[in-house]
């Protein structure tokens, strides 16, 4: 898919995994960056939120019924010394292999997302 390269907003999505209760609102409002796994929990695309999607990201954060999502400055967390990850044996993308990263800014109207959702209850 060709498009103008998406500008980096310097913000990234952070999820409180304990508070998250698989409501799935975030994936509805930001399908470009959030998918739901087979149990209804979010898989977030790696990296920062592109600039053209920040408003949608804010809306997705706002729409979580349990306030489990936040938008944080990417640099802020880099300054905090984080222990290196435990045995790095599995690749740790936040998204399943094969799913595309954040899409570039569309030239024209993006196609509607097809309603493939299975009912998860």
């Amino acid at each position, binding site marked *: 898919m060709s498009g103008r390269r998406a500008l980096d907003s310097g913000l990234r999505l952070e999820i409180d*995994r304990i508070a*998250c209760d698989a409501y799935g609102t975030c994936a509805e409002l930001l399908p470009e960056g959030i998918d739901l796994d087979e149990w209804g929990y979010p898989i977030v695309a790696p990296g920062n939120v592109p600039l053209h999607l920040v408003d949608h990201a804010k809306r997705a954060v706002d729409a979580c019924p349990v306030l489990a999502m936040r938008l944080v400055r990417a640099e802020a967390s880099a300054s905090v010394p984080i222990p290196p990850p435990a*045995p*790095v*044996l*599995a*690749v740790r993308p*936040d998204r*399943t292999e094969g799913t595309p990263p954040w899409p570039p800014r569309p030239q024209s109207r993006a196609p509607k997302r097809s309603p493939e959702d299975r009912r998860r209850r």
Partner: protein
Amino acid sequence: MTARLLDGPAPSAGAESLGDHRARLGDLPGRTERSHLIPLLDSAGLLGRGGAGFPVGRKWGSVAGRAKGDAVVLANGAEGEPLSHKDRVLMASRPHLVIDGLELAAEAVGARRAVLYVGSEHAQARAALERALAERDANRSRTLPRIPVSVATPPVSYVAGEESAAVHFVNAGDPRPTTVPPRPFEKGVGGKPTLVQNVESLAHAALIARFGDAWYREAGQAATKGTALVTVTGGTRPGVLEIELGTTIGEVAQWAGVVAGEGSPVLLGGYFGGLVAGADAWGLPLDPAVLRGHGTAFGAGVVAFMGDETCGVTTTARIMDYMAGSSAAQCGPCVFGLRSVADASARVATGQPRQDDLARLRGWSQSIAGRGACRLPDGATGLLASSLRVYEADWASHQHHRRCSVRRGAARAAS
């Protein structure tokens, strides 16, 4: 094998008394020397021994930088990894070394309070530490400022040893991980900056304070310097061993009396770790930096020889079941993901696989990690991924032919 932490009487002799400890190691250094302890730890290059391997000096520095004399130091002796025994052995036989490290850390970061966090089932370790604290109260030396040291005993569980879980238990009696940020070094016990440090790391720090960074760096055969405790199983001499970092797996196998053929699978790091196998594997040095370069890790120093006679698929399935049951039940991807992994791998191991079980296991080994509040799902799926790689042929045989190549017969539940 080099003995430093375990120098002196054998661990089987029980806890070393305060008198013997002081006679053997001498006094702690004076105040001026102690004020340089954090840079000394940095130059020694001491890495944490709890599993993450984070530089100890840097960790102490980040707490010291935030504390205003009100920090807390927590010695992590929870040891929830079933294959690891080194912390227990260290606490039970060298309690004064651990408490030395605790008090030095408290002084260095400006702490007013210390906690010894010991798994409730580690009775010997706990008794040794409590007796040691009583001995020190009775024979209070003037060297270090006195701070209250309490003992916290969480139920032994895999997640209880996690940093935020330790803090949560001390704060609220709940040994389950919490969401970070804020991390313990920012806001921990009682909302104060808290240093959570493995007991072995504290013991090393106590020796470095006495003997210096150059002394510490004399040991070590590869890039990483110093010694470390490892728990070895699978041979005729299982137990806790102190090795120079960089000692190869093959050398450890010799010491432990391992009869399995060279190149047979070895589990490094514990249930949280990964498998290595093959002709070159036993030549790998047990060095955190080198192992990371090979896609595996030193972790909590577990070296478990799996042997040629055990079915790797069955062992992996059992471990996955254990990990799934250890979940704190707080995060969906961990609970449902690990349960799915455990169910599928149990079916494959016992010869009753569903058609897509193996394919889905491969998928789950990648998709669950990083989506929980703690690193339990990462560790479990990391082990799964390495098992799928090392025992690839066995997994395929179980899945597609329902045959176990080890037992040379139909795959079924072991009685």
